[in-house]
Every structure is written in structure tokens, then in C-alpha cells.
């Protein structure tokens, strides 16, 4: 039974990363109509920035949680201003190819300087150790990742669905020309939205660093599963991404316990089933 709970916890942690990453993808797709294949590379950059901050600047994990998303978010905004903005109105394929190219370049550069093996990033002192819950042993850091990710996801959902700024974002997703004609600087809002989505990926990277180590290909390994999560949840759906992210992490964990051979493929089997039954995803809109 302890093994089941352990796998459930692993599933929840993976689900946290899936949710944070697919949420960023959903925000970016909703606003820019771009399938951001560079998301995994930007997630990796978040982890590397945390690593550099600690090892070169002595800046702690806690500051990295704030600074890495800002630094990588600014990098993302530069990408949007210099490259992605020119793809407005073109087929999705162009955005996908461009961001795929960006991902390969970023990963290649990091791989060139840091190789393929992982760099260590230790768990902050305040989150070391664990708690015996009676039915299982819970490492504090892993519990923190799940709760913090959930809080960030809900805060992002609240921002988009319940605030004035979110109303601008949702309206601009539907009719950017009219929103701009109301006096809102839509191009700037698009850049900031891309920065927000990228920042969420970088935040996931920082959270992941102490668990998975810091590796140039850490994002490439994860991004395919995250895209499956996004397809299942529905492109562009904020709540769909969050729920599907956590749910699929848990399903993956349970599969590892009940039928480990299928644990790497269960998400893709589910994706195929969902695509057959509901091509726009469980909660998504048509692309």
C-alpha cells in the first residue's frame, strides 16, 4: 500500500509540472495562437537560471523562485518582439516550426557548454526532511511543490478569469482589433502574456531543479507529455489545462503501480482516445 501512495505522490508532483507547463502553453495559445514548442527549453532555462543564481551569485532558491521567471520571461518577451510577432495571422505550423527551432538552438547551446548530465541543485534547508503521515512518508519538498504549484495555477486562473486584466486578455483572444480600438495596447499585452506563459515554465523549472537535477534536455523529455496533456485538456482552456495536468500525473502514477509497463504510454493512449471522441479536447475550443 505504501508503494501506491508513493506513486500517487510522484504522480501529483509530475502533475504539478504538467499543470504549470500546460497552463503556460494554454495562456500563450489562447492569446497568440502559437503552439509554443520552445516551452520545454524555457522550462530548462528556468532551472539553469536558478543554478547560476545560486552558484555564481549565491542567490537562494527562494529568490530564484521570483527572479528566474522574471529573467526567462524577459528572454521570452524578446523572442516574441523579435520573432513571434511576425507570425500573426499565419498558419499554426509556422509558429510551431519557429518555436521548435528556437528550442533546438537553446538546448544545443546549453548542451554544448554543460553536456547532457545533470548538475546538482540542493533542496533549500527549510524544505529538507520529511513528515511521517502514518500511511506514508512525505518528503517536505515534494509536498511543497504540489501545494505551491496548485496555488500558482489557481492564482493564474483567477487572474485570467476573474480580473479586469484577464477580461482584456480574453476579449483580445476573441477580437484583438476591437480591443485595441477601445484604447488598449494589444501588442504590448501580447508580449506580456507570452512573458507570463514563459515565466510559468521557468517557475516549473526552478521547482523541478532540486528533484530532477538541472539538465539541458530536461525540458525536451517533458514537453512531449505536456503537449499530450494540453491536447487532452483542450488547447487554450485555462482550467482544462490545470485539471488535466494534475489528473494525468495521478493517472500516470497509478499506472506505474498497477501496470508499470504502460506508465510511459498511458498519457498518449488517453490522448488518442480523447482525440477520437472529442477532437477539441475535454474542455477546449476549436483551434
Amino acid at each position: 500500500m505504501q508503494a501506491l501512495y508513493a506513486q500517487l505522490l510522484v504522480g501529483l508532483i509530475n502533475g504539478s509540472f504538467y499543470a504549470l507547463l500546460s497552463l503556460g502553453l494554454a495562456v500563450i495559445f489562447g492569446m497568440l495562437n502559437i503552439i509554443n514548442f520552445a516551452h520545454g527549453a524555457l522550462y530548462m532555462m528556468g532551472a539553469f537560471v536558478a543554478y547560476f543564481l545560486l552558484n555564481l551569485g549565491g542567490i537562494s532558491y527562494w529568490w530564484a523562485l521570483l527572479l528566474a521567471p522574471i529573467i526567462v520571461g524577459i528572454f521570452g518577451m524578446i523572442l516574441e518582439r523579435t520573432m513571434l510577432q511576425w507570425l500573426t495571422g499565419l498558419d499554426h505550423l509556422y509558429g510551431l516550426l519557429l518555436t521548435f527551432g528556437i528550442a533546438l538552438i537553446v538546448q544545443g547551446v546549453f548542451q554544448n557548454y554543460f553536456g547532457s548530465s545533470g548538475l546538482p541543485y540542493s533542496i533549500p534547508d527549510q524544505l529538507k526532511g520529511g513528515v511521517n503521515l502514518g500511511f506514508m512518508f512525505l518528503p517536505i519538498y515534494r509536498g511543497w511543490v504540489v501545494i505551491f504549484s496548485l496555488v500558482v495555477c489557481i492564482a493564474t486562473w483567477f487572474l485570467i478569469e476573474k480580473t479586469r486584466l484577464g477580461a482584456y486578455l480574453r476579449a483580445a483572444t476573441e477580437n484583438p482589433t476591437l480591443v485595441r480600438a477601445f484604447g488598449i495596447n494589444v501588442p504590448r499585452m501580447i508580449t506580456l502574456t507570452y512573458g507570463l506563459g514563459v515565466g510559468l515554465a521557468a517557475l516549473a523549472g526552478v521547482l523541478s531543479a532540486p528533484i530532477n537535477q538541472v539538465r539541458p534536455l530536461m525540458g525536451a523529455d517533458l514537453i512531449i507529455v505536456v503537449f499530450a496533456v494540453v491536447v487532452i485538456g483542450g488547447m487554450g482552456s485555462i482550467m482544462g489545462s490545470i485539471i488535466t495536468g494534475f489528473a494525468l500525473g495521478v493517472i500516470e502514477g497509478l499506472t506505474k503501480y498497477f501496470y508499470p509497463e504502460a506508465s510511459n504510454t498511458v498519457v498518449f493512449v488517453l490522448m488518442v482516445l480523447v482525440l477520437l471522441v472529442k477532437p477539441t479536447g475535454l474542455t477546449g475550443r476549436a483551434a
Partner: protein
Amino acid sequence: MPETAMAEASAKTATGGNILQVRNLEAWYGESHILHGINFDVNAGEVVTLLGRNGAGKTTTLKSIMGIIGKRAGSIKFNNQDIIRATSDKIARMGIAFCPEERGIFSSLDVRENLLLPPVVRPGGLPLEQIFDLFPNLKERLNSQGTKLSGGEQQMLAIARILRTGASFLMLDEPTEGLAPVIIQQIGHTIARLKKEGFTILLVEQNFRFASTVADRYYVVEHGKIIDGFSNAELAANMDKLHTYLGV
């Protein structure tokens, strides 16, 4: 229409200084040349109507003023500032508000969010109480999804949301299109009341009967040009000509 005659028509019913001056306005949709040198003026406090057949260039004129047409040339002066090269967000912040023909109600926003969406660009906008006084239906449906409203209610919402912003120059594109007579009458009352409140309104209408109840002056658009213009007082004398222009 010669510029001098047009300016004369403008001066006859001028209720305030010249607020909008359009000269030799040309506009393109891609390769299609739509406007071929539009000239007209709007004075502060007036209701001016652009009349014309389908495809004459009325909506394109409004969109050109608002800056949402890709390629424009000529001169558009608003409060003596040339806005031909300004982006639409900057134009909105100068005090011009646009209510599009398709209404542009956002389906992902409820009525309250739709109403509060356009930011306040300058002081002097109508407070919500006054907007609800003009459009009582909206108050009762604040939590409904924007696109679940009836056509008339959506039109009211589309007009209401630009009244909050403080813009004093409103451009309404076919506000009566597809609406029941009783709703058209209500929109007519609203426009008359807005005029009393000091708003300047540039209206595009195909419904000439409706336009005649609210407009101070008319311009007739055909093939991307202004071909005639007259005041409301001259309307009776121009009826035959107008019928020919509009093909009614």
C-alpha cells in the same frame, strides 16, 4: 462634392467648433482600393450621418478614422491633430469611440465585463447609473453571457460600453441593423439624448428614415467618395436626389 460646398453645408448647422476634418481620405483592403478621396467635416455637438448603398465605403470610412484599416492615405484631423498615422489604441485615447456594425460583444465575457471592458480614456464619461437609466435592460442582465442577449440588448450594450470611456466623439456603424422597430425607436431616443449631453456622433446608416429622426447633417457616400451633403433643414428639398442615390 467640392470642398467649399461641403464646408458650407457643415457651417450651416454648426453647433460648435470643427472637431473632425477628413481630407482626401483613401483606404485599401489588401489590393482593393476602397476609398478614393473622402472629404467631410464634423462639428462638435452634431449628429452627422453617412448615407449610401451597400459597399459604398461608409464602414470603411469609420474604420479608417479609427485606424483599423491596414493602409490609409490623406488627412484625418481630430481636434486639429492629424491622426492618419496613429494606431487605433492611441486614437481611442484621444477621445474617439467606435461601435462596430457587428456589435463586437465578447462571448467569453459576461455583460458586466463587456460593459466595463473599454478603459476610461478621459474624464467626463457617463457614470454607470446614468447608463442603466438609458438602458435599464442591461442592469437586469449583468451576469448573463454577452452573446446570450437579444440583438437589441447587444446593440444597447455595444453603445453603452463606449459611453463610460469619456470619449466625446462616437462613431456608430449601423446601430439599427436587424432590430425591431420598437428597439430602433429606443436607440433613436438614446442618440437624441446623447446629443443633448454634448456628444458628437458620426453615424453610418442605411435606414434613412431612422437617420432623419436624429441627424443634423448628411453626407452621401458612393464608390468611395462623398458625392453630396446637406443639412436636415434641406432634407425635404433633396428627397428625390436622395432616393436616386440610395436606390429606394
